[in-house]
């Protein structure tokens, strides 16, 4: 049930974000000062913002950025974290120690600190925000994959595989990876939701998306000073973030419930 509601809502949002990459009801790059602060109408369902841009279009474009950043951040985490975790689980003692120590080291850098460093190095952008959040995700997935991997490697059928002459890499790839995939998938959904919140925070403090890129966090930032004259500008992007995170966490919950719940939880808490 939760799986379907959350999944449906997530799919809907993702759909909107995809559409917005090509088309929005009104262009978000065109500023029309004369049309600013319009109340909701048939033309502009949620009205217009302080630059006279259509808020529905802005929210769609913002979804594009926010979900894009989150997706990239999770992809980075999975792409680097899972292989590292598997390496730690199936490699020798030193490999394990090096990978896990590095994961600890990376874990000590909150995404915001990484973003601060990246921003000062490369300038602020949505891409750098995604990388910063992604870097923080790497140890999350590395630990998860390592813990799950060890668990799987301790099972009997692995011994069978080993006896049949399969090497470590082959076992990791053919037996361990498929077995930890559900846990990784569940965690990915959770990290995706966290990444959306992180992007909002980073863009809000100016370490994320930059003009003219539209993002929910930036919309919040821009709306902040208008709270007294146009509070609705702060309401919509905030609601959009809440809705997106709710949808995705609900989806993750559903996913977790569908998979072996105890197994999933135990690994996460490890």
């Amino acid at each position: 049930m939760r799986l379907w509601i959350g999944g449906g809502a997530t799919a809907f949002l993702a759909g909107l974000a995809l559409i917005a990459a090509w088309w929005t009801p009104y262009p978000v790059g065109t500023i029309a000062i004369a049309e600013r602060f319009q109340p909701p109408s048939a033309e502009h369902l949620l009205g217009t913002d302080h630059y006279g841009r259509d808020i529905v279009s802005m929210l769609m474009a913002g979804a594009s950025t926010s979900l894009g950043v989150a997706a990239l951040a999770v992809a980075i985490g999975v792409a680097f974290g899972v292989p590292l975790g598997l390496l730690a689980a199936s490699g020798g003692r030193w490999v394990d120690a090096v990978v896990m120590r590095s994961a600890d080291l990376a874990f000590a850098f909150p995404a915001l600190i990484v973003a601060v460093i990246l921003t000062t190095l490369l300038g602020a952008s949505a891409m750098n925000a995604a990388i910063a959040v992604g870097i923080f995700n790497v140890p999350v997935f590395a630990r998860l994959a390592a813990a799950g991997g060890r668990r799987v490697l301790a099972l009997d059928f692995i011994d069978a595989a080993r006896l049949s002459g399969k090497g470590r890499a082959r076992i990791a790839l053919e037996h361990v990876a498929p077995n930890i995939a559900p846990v990784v998938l569940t965690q990915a959904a959770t990290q995706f939701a966290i990444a959306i919140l992180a992007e909002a925070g980073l863009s809000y403090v100016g370490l994320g998306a930059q003009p003219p890129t539209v993002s929910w966090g930036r919309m919040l930032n821009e709306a902040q000073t208008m709270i007294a004259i146009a509070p609705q500008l702060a309401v919509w992007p905030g609601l959009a973030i809440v809705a997106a995170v709710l949808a995705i966490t609900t989806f993750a919950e559903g996913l977790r419930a569908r998979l072996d719940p105890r197994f999933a939880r135990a690994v996460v808490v490890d």
Partner: protein
Amino acid sequence: MARRLLLSLALAFATTISAIAAPVDRPLIIGMRLEPPHLDPTAGAAAAIDEVLYANVFEGLTRIDAEGHVVPGLATDWEFGDDGLSLTLTLRDGVTFHDGKPFNADVAKFSLDRARAPGAENAQPQLFAAIESVAAPDPTTLVIHLSRPDADLPYSLAWGDAVMVHPDSAETNKQTPVGTGPFRFERWRRGDRIVLVRNDDYWGEAAKLPRVEFAFVGDPTVALAALMAGDINAFPSFGAPETLPVIAADPRFTVKSGTTEGETIMAINSRRPPLDQLAVRQALARAVDRQALVDGAMYGTATPIGAPMPPHDPAYIDLTGVNAYDPASAKALLAEAGVENLKLTLSLPPTSYARRSGEIIASELREVGIDVTLEPVEWAEWLSRIFRGKDYDLTIVAHTEPSDIGIYGRPDYYFHVDDPRLTEILDALDVETDPAARIELLQEAQRRIADNAVNVFLFQLPKSGVWDARLVGMWENSPIQANDVTGVYWSK
């Protein structure tokens, strides 16, 4: 239910929190957007230093009053020698620094020599460029010898960069400033506020406020809330023009839109093709709707300009018509110049006027077929790469120094104006002392700059002051970067 609970909580808190101070003798808490990096006005360019200390803690030989006139400070009067190559100043007697040390001509000589020494940290060496030597024939007489006539010298001496410091405290002024002003420095809680208290041994009329605090609030929303809550009494320069109508509607507050010396420009790197072509620069200027900027970025609080001269200056001429908003003509000019698919980068420093104007200008330039990439930069990078390294296409910035049209006579300045005739005019201005002749020269310079579309001149930065309606004597304008509160008091 929840509402009633909150209300009773509200009452309980309100009675414990609101500080009740005696009227009139109340301290003044001034909100500022930026915190000074240190507290020595003679050793840094940050406007925030002067905004806390100028006139309040440190005084110069001359000073600038609220109307922008040069008036006596620690010098009671002054006179140029007949050849214009010396300036003799009579100093005030009986002035002491906050640590009790006396002020005299030797101290004044020390201050000026220190400021103009080669390698000094002073941010405005050009103010003292004409000074050849300084002499102190007696304790109340100071003679400044010049290598060339400098009619602006009395004005230059009024700058924060030329304030009087004592040899014993000069090196520690960055942390614990010791001046001669009506307020003494008490403490600085970094990141939060600087506290000044009344100097009871002041040589002149004592300040009416017992205590002044400068609180640093970077965020406009917090600023608004702090003002509404009474945590801060005044913002001499309020950062969020969009909230001004809300504040103006509240009878507790006074909102004043004053003038500043800040000409906001979109600087053009005229050495980078095709921006070296006049037609392209004109096209840029005509593609920009200044009124849209004034409305959209400044919420109607700014005045459009067409040249680098503030509208309140006697030499000002309205040149906004020279390259008025005309997208069709802008397109035609670009076509004429044979420029197609022009791609430019617009670098934006982190102020809201620059970021907002940049977004609007980018949208406007796109309308005439110029593809603009916005590039947000921090001040550090702006200073090193754009201002000093001159590596940029376009950038938006406000030049806030008073009477700074002289920068257009410097071909090595970051917008690369290469106009020998303009340099000639501005050089002549340096030595011209006759007011009428000066105005004529200034106007000729403005016309040349506008005709050449050196930069796109956007608007004069306003000083949107907001303060408690019971305050009297707050400066409405900003003829110099300062918050002179020496004459401010609470009416009730």
